[in-house]
């Protein structure tokens, strides 16, 4: 199979305890353009009608929709309707990548000019709002990064280690759970595992970015059901000076292929959260989020 087609429904519904008088929302709900994905149809339905709506690209190249509401409202519904085709990515020999230390050196300042790709990669090498760098993360990753090991093999090893040692527990964490706690308790959700893997890779001196997207919900016959269904999903992408960016999904111990639909990427969740806003009023409120990923016949 060289490509797969999906219909994706992503509904977010806020019911506010008290009316919201003013609101500004930023939505990362449209898939970005990438070589392994074609976006055939996309719609973003918003209720109530926003006073302003503006579509643009954010600084990392992701589609971003700005919504402004300047009238009192009791609820907010944002529904994304997407039809996406995911193409197969070229095969990759993990062992054929350069030693991981070489990648670190290439990313480190040396007083020499940087190639555009490397300069772009350095954006994703440092601390970001949810990913703080600490020695413990480097220590956790250390046994995967033996001297001279090919970079992608080492990253694959780290992915396996996280998958093996952490349990998926939707009740364990919230967005704001500190990574140190995740590391200590060895449980979390896809977002935590992605952030943890980013912290490990960046603490080692590598560039890695956070990818948000979706995962196929229907398990193919005879294969186990993948965790993360019916929700937004997240994984990481690591920069290799020779091969470019390569994706790894620590929640499922796979390299994303035809079942992962890419939405956006950034330094961490904060850069690409599906819906982020500032409201005035509203009282306490938790959104109801429903995600459905349906495989469909070729369009």
């Amino acid at each position, binding site marked *: 199979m060289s490509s797969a087609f999906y219909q994706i429904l992503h509904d977010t519904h806020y019911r506010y305890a008290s009316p919201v008088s003013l609101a500004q929302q930023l939505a990362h709900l449209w898939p970005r353009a990438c070589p392994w994905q074609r976006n055939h149809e996309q719609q973003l339905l918003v209720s109530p009608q926003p006073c302003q709506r503006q579509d643009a690209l954010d600084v990392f190249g992701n589609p971003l929709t700005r919504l*402004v509401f300047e009238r*009192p409202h009791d609820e907010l519904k944002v529904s994304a309707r997407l039809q996406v085709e995911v193409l197969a990515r070229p095969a990759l020999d993990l062992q054929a990548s350069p030693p991981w230390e070489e990648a670190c050196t290439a990313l480190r300042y040396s*007083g020499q*000019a*940087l190639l555009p790709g490397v300069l772009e990669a350095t954006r994703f090498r*440092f601390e970001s709002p949810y990913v703080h760098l600490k020695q413990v993360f480097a220590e956790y990753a250390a046994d995967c990064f033996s001297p001279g090991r090919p970079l992608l093999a080492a990253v694959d090893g780290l992915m396996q280690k996280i998958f093996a040692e952490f349990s998926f527990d939707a009740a364990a964490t919230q967005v704001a759970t500190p990574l140190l706690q995740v590391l200590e308790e060895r449980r979390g959700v896809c977002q935590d595992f992605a952030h943890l893997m980013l912290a490990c890779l960046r603490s080692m001196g590598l560039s890695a970015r956070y990818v948000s997207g979706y995962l196929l919900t229907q398990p193919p016959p005879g294969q186990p059901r993948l965790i993360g269904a019916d929700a937004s999903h997240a994984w990481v992408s690591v920069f290799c000076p020779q091969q470019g960016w390569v994706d790894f999904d620590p929640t499922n111990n796979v390299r994303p292929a035809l079942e992962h639909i890419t939405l956006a990427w950034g330094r961490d969740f904060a*850069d690409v959260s599906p819906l982020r806003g*500032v409201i005035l009023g509203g009282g306490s409120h938790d959104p109801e989020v429903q995600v459905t990923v349906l495989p469909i016949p070729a369009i």
Partner: protein
Amino acid sequence: MPYCLATAEPAMPDLLADYPLTLGAYHELFDADGQVRPHWRLLLERLQRSSPAQLAQRQALLARQIQENGVTYNVYADPDGADRPWELDLLPNLIPAEEWQQIAAGVAQRAGLLNAVLADLYGPQQLLADGLLPAELVFGHNNYLWPCQGVQPPGGTYLHLYAVDLARAPDGRWWVTADRTQAPSGAGYALENRQIVSRAFPELYRDLRVQYLAGFFRTLQDTLARQAPAGSETPLVVLLTPGRFNESYFEHLYLARQLGYPLVEGSDLTVRDAKVYLKTLAGLRRVHAVLRRLDDDFCDPLELRTDSALGVPGLLEAVRQGNVLVANALGSGVLESPGLPGFLPAIAEKLLGEELLLPSVASWWCGEPPVLDKALEQLDELLVRASFPSQSFAPVFGRDLDEAQRAELAERLKARPYAYVAQALAQLSQAPVWQPEEGQLAPRAIGMRVFAVASAEGYRVMPGGLTRVAAEADAEVVSMQRGGASKDTWVLGERHAGGEPWQWLRPLGVADLVRSDPYLPSRVVENLYWFGRYSERCEDGARLLRIMLARYVDDDDDPQALQTALSLAESLGLLPDADSGELQQRLLEALLGEDWQGSLRGNLQRLQWVAGSVRGKLSQANWQALLELQREAQGLSSEQADFGELLDFLDRLLLSLAALSGFALDDMTRDDGWRFLMIGRCIERLQFLCDSLANFLTSSAAQDQSALEWLLELGNSSITYRTRYLASAQLIPVLDLLLLDEQNPHAVLFQVRTLLRSLARLGERFELPSERRLKHLEGQLARFSLASLENPLFGAASVQEVLDGLSGLLESISQASADISDRLGLRFFVHVDASQRTQSS
């Protein structure tokens, strides 16, 4: 001492009798041979010629002025007394004109260079691509704001205001120790120091021909006005402060006054249609430029730090669309890394084709392996600092470490080398400070903060600055935060044309008269409104608690009276419900509970908080009364509470609260803010009365005499009742007094009419729709006849029916006043049109 004989005053002792010339340091006052430098001679002569009494008088004048300005400073101080009075030395530091020219040229060059670096980092990032600046120092910095990438500020100006910290080495050269690029502080303090010190030495100030500071501030005004995207409108510039708890809040206040900008907090501004507006009582006013004193990442919770409550949501998008100028540009804090200066010489060469005029203190950014090794070798002579402000790492002097600590630090550096910078120790020069107790001059280490402002012709440097003085005689660090003092800085010689003194005391004429603040911020009015509501809420709550406590203490008096009071308090949310424990516990919780939402203590704290935010509108006496209240409430402990003591406290509390309402009536200017305060009181009282009466009338207590007694007490009308009727409480006269008596401020009808009158007056000023619903209810209430409760034709049931109907009317009035409160809030505080309320399907 023959020259003293002519005067009756005691002779001035030798000011320099005990002035140690520390070796190895540059002395501002003396040259290497121990001779007084020429530019200090006049000042020293004058000091020597004056009497100790005169100097003491000057010192007193200076202290008094700080005190007077400190009144403003302390006005907004937090109650814990965290604010210190400003420390200012009597003597200025003196710098001759020709020396200053070199400093100024160096500072102007550096400001221009840093501006160019910002333009590159938020633009093409060529410096990174060329290897002239490490990506680590930029992308690793928490104040490199990705959402600002590609944003073009008006005129290409990122740094409108720039400050640099300088220290003077033993050879007399000035070295840069730090750059301040995001929201530099200190220019206001420099101006304030000048105002005070120049008055202490008016003749010297004139004779030394000290250069004026005014031009600097005028340039700042000109630049912001010129670059603000105001089109054909007169630009409105505001000064954005993090608020009264910020350490340099005094300076924000002072600068805002001097520059003539409204001082605003984030919540005073709102973004609509990607334009920034100031919320004033009179409506939204377009803001064209924001001079900010708020840190980069706090400025917009929508796109930057989400946890910032101090910023303005949507500000960045307004900047991006070119609708507002923010000075300095958002993201300019990225240049404050101590790792940056080491790369500036090469960057100056590349971007300006010039050599850097001012050297920086030598530093080793550890991000390159050979540099890290070198820094580790010389750790003893170096100061290790974090590259980024987000790190929790206090600067460490290598020489202070023992072997184990050194090893630990080395490990830390090796783990993430790019996050650390090793710096050579800055050497500080020594300047004379006046010691009032000894009557002597003594040397102290100083550093100097110098300011530059963008102008149409490049950067202009303030001829002067904030000289900072070490706290101790042997201290090597100058820091206002560590208890240091400050000095005025006098640049001598040529005065520039057009530099007339800043108008501190412009004579005010008829044309300047102000009757109301044209920019009265909605926030202030909103806080006054809530000040009114909370003071009334505390009063009502205290009265009900007193009723319950008193009846609880005499429990054999009348159990039913207590019971109905308890159920009323429960239904009003002023008493935790019966499931939450024993009655005694519940009463204590209602009074003193820390965690329980409706407790009186909680409401007193809220009252205190809003009072603090409208501090400037309250008189000193009023404020004192509030502090007293707070202190007393804090002093009560629920563990060892004695009910007699608590009753006594409630009595005193009610007295103080009465005083508070007296202040409001008699003491405050009756402007729009005051009107909202009174409306707040009125709405709160009206709701409390209506809810209490409605609840009471439907309970079985309506005919119970002792219950009617406490109802009178709740309406603060017992005395009136007794004077009028000389009898025990009965339903009809009690209702007359609490419902319909137009002269009783605790009667519902009185409050309804007061509210209607206030709203009508507000409506005349601001075009409000007339209040039909409440007017209608007022008519119904006024027509209600108490006679319907007499001689009931159809027995007790019909009386209860009438009471139920009355209760329903009261509930409607309460609801109507709550709606009015919401509408006022949307219209005057939030500024949205509530008539366009969107109902979702």
